[in-house]
């Protein structure tokens, strides 16, 4: 490619990535000093970043199409460089990242405009938009990342903002509890991704996608890793994807994420965030090609998730949970498609699913009116549609299946019983040892603070 192009591309890339990054301090720093930004300023700032970013990404697309270049890397430089190890920051525009960037901008932009009116006069208006900008920046960085470390940065930003948005109404216990749940699941997936990057460096000394996935542009690259290495890295990345995309067995967090305000549930968990795992698998798809067993596992995980989501969605009585399990179903299919090697189909599927689901989430409060209108048009009640019940099952099995679906496959209960509890138990045991040790050292009770009485609140009506 000619140098002139190169320079233009670098500028455009800067707009795409830099805009959302700039938005974070613009909204965040005044808040640190308790300076109250006006609603109008906040939404204008968000809109201009999105419009600029969207135009720039369209320009990139146009240039790529006209110049027939399938891959435009933009190097930012080394963050760390020591012998045998370097942490390279790089963004890359190719046939995978450009559609994803455009999707992110379109959906985030629309929802940003939606939220500017929907959240009007809400005390957390600024906080919402700050988290939203963090999310947007995270999405863009993840999509355009050219190295696994850069990707991890965006991945973390998305995770952090998501968990905080779930717990947006932090004055009530349920959102906080569920926010914590989402955060914990995300940590598992983050840890897996981090491990993958460590293993990758260990195996090939590289975190750059164009190195370990081959220099050819997506999806034609061939990895330099051996099948063994590809499998171990792939499994770790799959775990990361399972957490982020709410695949079985970590699906339980998605309905819990509906605690936040409607726009955040819509765009973040229904449309963008939940596809990140699938995106990651697409990104490392050359690894899948290298290891057949990895593909088999990915397909199994995807199909199980799809089946689980489809069954569970059928008993949901509220619109947001029904939509979130419907999302789980489709993401499962997308993952299976990736496992089967249908890259482009999966990509189109992600784009289509993201748009449709966002529309459905945004219109979720209109459900009653929709049902009313449909009933009027059809001229009959839309009663329970028991035709959906599986045929040929005995009464007992139907009840079993219903309970299975109602309790969301018992996935969360199993996690609590077999992961959370043992995990806590280990710490309790360690705590017991420590207590004995400190008691012995202080020759008596070493933790007087534990006996402090809980202060009784609500003296208001007493006085």
């Amino acid at each position, binding site marked *: 490619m000619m140098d002139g192009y190169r320079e233009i591309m670098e500028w455009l890339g800067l707009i795409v990535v830099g805009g959302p990054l700039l938005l974070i301090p613009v909204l965040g720093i005044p808040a640190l000093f308790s300076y109250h930004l006006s609603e109008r300023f906040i939404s204008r700032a968000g809109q201009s970043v999105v419009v600029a970013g969207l135009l720039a990404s369209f320009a990139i697309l146009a240039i790529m199409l006209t110049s027939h270049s399938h891959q435009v890397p933009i190097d930012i430089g080394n963050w760390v460089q020591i012998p045998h190890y370097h942490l390279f920051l790089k963004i890359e525009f190719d046939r995978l990242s450009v559609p994803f960037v455009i999707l992110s901008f379109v959906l985030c932009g629309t929802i940003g405009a939606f939220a500017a009116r929907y959240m009007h006069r809400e005390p957390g208006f600024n906080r919402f938009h700050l988290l939203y900008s963090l999310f947007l920046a995270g999405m863009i960085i993840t999509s355009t990342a050219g190295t696994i470390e850069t990707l991890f940065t965006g991945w973390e930003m998305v995770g952090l903002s998501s968990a905080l948005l779930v717990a947006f109404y932090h004055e009530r216990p349920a*959102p906080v509890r*569920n926010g914590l749940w989402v955060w914990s699941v995300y940590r598992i997936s983050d840890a897996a991704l981090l491990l993958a990057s460590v293993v990758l460096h260990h195996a090939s000394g590289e975190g750059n996608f164009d190195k370990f996935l081959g220099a050819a542009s997506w999806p034609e690259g061939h990895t330099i890793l051996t099948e063994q290495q590809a499998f171990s890295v792939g499994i770790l990345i799959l775990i990361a994807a399972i957490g982020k995309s709410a695949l079985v067995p970590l699906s339980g967090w998605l309905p819990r994420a509906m605690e936040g305000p*409607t726009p955040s549930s819509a765009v973040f968990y229904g449309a963008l965030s939940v596809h990140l795992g699938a995106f990651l698998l697409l990104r490392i798809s050359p690894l899948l090609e290298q290891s057949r067993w990895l593909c088999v596992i990915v397909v199994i995980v995807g199909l199980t998730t799809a089946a689980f989501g489809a069954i569970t969605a059928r008993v949901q*009585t509220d619109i947001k949970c029904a939509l979130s399990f419907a999302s789980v179903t489709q993401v499962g299919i997308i993952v299976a498609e990736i496992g089967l090697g249908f890259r482009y189909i999966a990509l189109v599927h992600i784009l289509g699913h993201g748009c449709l689901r966002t529309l459905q989430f945004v219109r979720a409060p209109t459900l009653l009116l929709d049902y009313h209108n449909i009933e009027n*048009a059809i001229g009959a009640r839309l009663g*329970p549609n028991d035709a959906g019940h599986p045929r040929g099952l005995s009464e007992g099995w139907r009840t079993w299946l219903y309970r299975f679906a109602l309790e969301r496959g018992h996935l969360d209960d199993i996690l609590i019983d077999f992961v959370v509890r043992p995990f806590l138990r280990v710490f309790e045991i360690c705590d017991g040892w420590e207590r004995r040790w400190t008691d012995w050292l202080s020759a008596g009770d070493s933790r007087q603070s534990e006996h402090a009485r809980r202060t009784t609140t609500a003296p208001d009506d007493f006085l």
Partner: protein
Amino acid sequence: MAASIRDAAELLPSQGPITAFVFLNTLQALEGLPFAEGMKKGGRLFGCQVYLPEDRYREKLARGRILREDLDAELEEDLQHRGADVIAGLVTRKALWMAMLEFPLRFGPTEELQWFVAESDALQRLRSEMPDPLRQPFLNETRQWAMRDLRMKTSESGIHRHDVILQHNLFGDLLTRFGADNIEQWSDATWETFSLHALWRVCRHGAHIRDEHPTAAPLPVRHRDWMLRTTGEDTDHLVHEVLIRFCSSFADQGFARWSLPERNAGVFRSFTQLYGRANGVPHARMRGLAEELHRIERAALTPLESVLESLELLGVSADEWPEFIPATLLALRGWAGLLWQMEVRADRVPVPAPPGTLIEFLAVRLILERIALQSAAACHAIPVEPLSELRQVLAKKLHSPPPASIAQRAFLVFQLAQVLGWNAPRLFKLTKNEWHDLIFEIEAFSGHERRRLYHEAFERRFRVNSLDAIAVHAQRPAVRVKSPRYQIVTCIDTREESFRRHLEEVAPSVETFGAPGFYGVPIYYRGAADAHFTTLCPIVVMPKHWVTEEVALTMEDEHRRRAQTRKALGAASREVHVRSRTIAGGALLTATFGVLASVPLVARVLFPRLTSQFRRILGKFVEPPPVTRLCLERSEDPPGPENGHVGFRVHEMADMGERLLRDIGLTNGFARIVTFLGHGSYCLNNPHKSAYDCGACSGGAGGPNARALAAMLNDSRVRNILYQRGIEIPSSTAFLGGMHNTCTDVVTFFDLDLLPSSHRADYEFITRTLAEACERNAHERCRRFQSAPLNLSFAAAHRHVEGRSQDLAQTRPEFGNATNALCFVGRRATLRGLYLDRRAFDQSYDPHSDDSEYTILGRILSAVVPVCSGINLQYYFSYVDSPGFGAGTKLPHNVVSLLGVMNGPSSDLRPGLPWQGVEIHEPMRLLLIIESTPHAMRTIMARNPTVARILRNEWMQLAMLHPDTKEILIYRNDEFTPYTPITMELPQADSSTDWYRGWRDHLGFAQIRAASSSASDR
């Protein structure tokens, strides 16, 4: 047992399906108690706030919405002669209470107060609220005392020996700390600090009193509360997780594709079936549930027996039931209330619940509670065998804190001492008994009582302002408009107040009336494009008649074609709705057409008004043809929904017509056109839409009622009967039914093709004046929308409100009846031209046309009192405690079971109004002003127990305006006392716009010149 469950059920929220929002007093079950008592009890039962926080009232005090004289008058009324008692020789009770009202008292946990005293400038600077005249004496006296008494080691002035020692012990080191040697050189600041230190010490010393009768906080009754207090573990969390999921499946009206197995067998049976078998998945926190249910099933216990068994196992004795059962049901009050409504008002839901559902719910709930308690107790190593003694076991672990600590009490006196000018030497002289009196006096005037007084003072200020304004305005002769161009009857709704006012300004030759928006025609109605009948009448009425809309015969083919198209489109959209959530359909849909969804998404969010215009144009091709008729006349008895049974007999029509015309006092002086306007609200993405519709139509749009009444009165046979009964309607008079969309401010009419061509010019005048009134009304509404600039033109304001109704992202399409505070029953002429700021319900009634038994007023009040007080109190409670009584913010709402909303994925059902709908409300009891006499009221109250209960217990305020002498009487404590206006001045403005423009907040009353009936048409 069943009876005590039914009693408890009365406390549950009475909200049925959210698609037919019903306004009722949230504390309706307590209406039998006087207001103040009901509020106290309700607050305790529900664990919610019943008044605003004190600071909010203090803000109102600062901004003149409450005056000191109001507080003074309320204290006077509350305390009467007790106000003059002197407390501890320091202050009268009234002055003490006044100080406690006026100056904020900080309070908190002991640790926090100690920190506050040590770390803030509480001991350095006198409170800024301290009145200036008290400052110098306060400091000087302390100074003198310190110089004179404190420095002297021995008594020279004959002070009792004991006192001297005490004084020395208390203050001895204080002087040293501040430097006793150079005491004469102390700066003013040092003296201030010293005085406060001394005061704090005296207070702490004095607060050492003994409680003879310590009033401990009431002990919790539910096991869960005991568990929560001792271990911090909330067993309800576990119970509700299962129960909410189960209840929403049980209540589901057909959203889920699979319905609950054995749903028709009732809650209890389907629950035991579903959870009674082991399913191979260990669920540690619910261990034992399956076995327990299995045992119950084997023992063949009925739900009621199971409740009794659970209560016994939990160790709840029969005398605890009246407290325990309500508390247990109220723990998940939204769902319990919904099940109860599905049971008792089975006519209001497509899939009702069988009788006994609430008992079954309680049985299931108690079983779950037992399991959850066992599991929680096991976690915290608390012995659970037997469960019946769990509360006693927990009671031993619970150290109930003393009512108030010394620091807490001392701090209260410390704060009050500053604003009342009591310094250390003065307080030091108090005896032990006096300290005792002082502290108990302060504690007796609790936060709840202070807020109650504040609230009543707030109501008083508004009452005084309203009655003064009405007293002045009513001096003008109340004459009806002479030969009006047309007459218009609207709903009594507060939203129509401004609409009528603007219309009267635009066209002073128009006469307006108000009546409950179902216009005395209670019906089940089905439109030409509707699938089912909706109930259009107040919730307390059960309609006896059915009315349908039919397309004119000439359009029959067209109608059939369009209905088929609609059906096909409906079926397709249903498929998309459902299939998009399935596995294969979803994959196909999203992978192929999914990206296209971005078009409507972007269009509807970014260009709502344009998109909706586009959609409307498309809609024109499929909606029913424009020429339709109501099927009003019945040929066969009895009335029913089937062909031939739909509609009324002629004499029934005449009865309804006569009744309404007499109610509003329109029995003569008919104009050429008389219009009835129903009202409804069109907005998108709003599960609470029906809360904006007509309250007198149980949350439906009242257009069909208005249309039906107009059609009846146009019928010559009906007119003949009315003529015989003394109402002569000229043949030149035509009635016209219409519909006012309160969200977009658009008026449409029905059956225009039947309007005689001779009335063409009159109709054009109507549309022209109404269009202008609508624009102005929209303009007045816009002043309350923060997102609408204050300088909009009329037309721009109208566009703005239209945009609001079509915006998916709009959470405040309109404000409904928020800010309602007044209800006037009387002649329009009395109030015409008075600016009431959309705060008044206005029912037309002519006192001179009533009989000696007050039949007309009686039947008006039997609807107006419960309906309006229901609306008013629903707004009241949804505002004072939005998360508790209301639905909280609507942003995380999630439509569930097609019946209600919950917060996020799983929460209690949220009945009540969302915060966005009540945001601008000012909570106060409705002030009902009736143009009649106390005698009339006494007669009616003796006849109608509901009206008597609400008014006598003061859930609504009442004032009478004498129709002739214009004397005002206020009804309180079951007595009518004359009211003397405080001012005879009332601001005047040329037009409403002149009065309200540029102002967002609440506005006072004013006389509007343009609206007087003598002004000429524009």
